């Protein structure tokens, strides 16, 4: 399963056939701090993943001076 991580951009291969929650734990990513996108749609922690899936994990935290 291809996983694209953003900020900084990189791609990693991970094992599918499990829940998104387990993938996030393995990556040490807090689910409240990212959007996870599969086939152009948002998915939640309880979603089952296939080996053929391609995910984007997009951080939502922005810093510096807003807006």
């Amino acid at each position, binding site marked *: 399963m291809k996983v694209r991580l*953003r*900020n900084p951009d990189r791609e990693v291969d991970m094992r599918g056939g499990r829940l998104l929650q387990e993938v996030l734990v393995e990556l040490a990513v*807090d*689910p*409240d*701090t*990212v*959007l996870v*996108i599969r086939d152009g*749609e*948002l*998915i*939640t*922690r*309880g*979603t089952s993943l296939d080996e053929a899936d391609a995910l984007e994990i*997009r*951080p*939502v*935290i*922005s*810093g*510096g*001076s*807003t*807006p």
Partner: protein
Amino acid sequence: MRCHRCKASAVIEVRRNNAAFCEGCFLTVFRKQVARTIDKWEMIGGGDRVLVAVSGGKDSLALWDALLDLGHDTSGLYLGLGIGTYSDRSYAAAEGFARSRGATLETVDLAGEHGFDIPTAGRRGPRSTCAVCGLSKRYIFNRAAVDGGYDVLATGHNLDDEAATLLGNTLRWDTEFIARQSPVLPARGGMVKKVKPLHRLSELETAAFAFLRGIDYVVEECPLVAGNTQLRYKDAMNAIEARSPGVKARFFLGYLDRGAPLFRSEDRAEVGACARCGQPTTGTYCAFCRAKAQIAGERLGPAGDRQVAEELADEVLPAELYEIALAEAE
């Protein structure tokens, strides 16, 4: 995971509320939250012209989108900071959104109008790039809103931004800043009314809203943000939130309900006019003119230089920089 409202498949989980939503219900709930916040705090009156401070990021574009859908009379203002390709992409996102919604986007170019960009400010002045960026935005957005005859300036500050700011102000016991932290700052002495309609919504929610609305916002982080204090406070709050969902909202919204009245008397700042540009300030010169003079290598005179030195101490700069600034002020 199922939507709390309609039991369809959920696309977002809001753990602090022990809730999850499908796309349609989430967009509805988000807009209702923004509308309720605007009503509760009397942020925007009937007929008000609203200027939305737009960076090209998820928060400001989500805010503008929601305000347009709620029927408010809005224009956007984009400030070109001169941060290379990051600024190019940010402008393209803001401009693309405005075009897609048939909305008006005004632009100000920092270098073109004021002679410096943010990377130059970081190299030449003793302030951090984020500090100069923040004070430039506050100055230029306010000035544009006043000059343009707008009634309200709306910014995309979200719950995470506000909680991190409150944490920072509290760790320093900066009581005057704590007293002024509010979702609404009324107009006074040359300052336009400022509102933060997203202050009850988390960064996750604003990002999800922007994504689900198909807004092509800038995902990349500003390349100059490394080591930013606000990010450290956000990391700290997120670490607590991960174990205690809802703590961030209780901290900030609890402050608004029960803490803010206790600090009200600390907001003692008297606003006058900057001796150089005439814009509102609590000192002799406004922060923007002081920064601009420093970047240009100009002296503002003893009063301005002393003010800069004191301000730098507040920014918790390395001691040697503060000493240099103080020595220069003598």
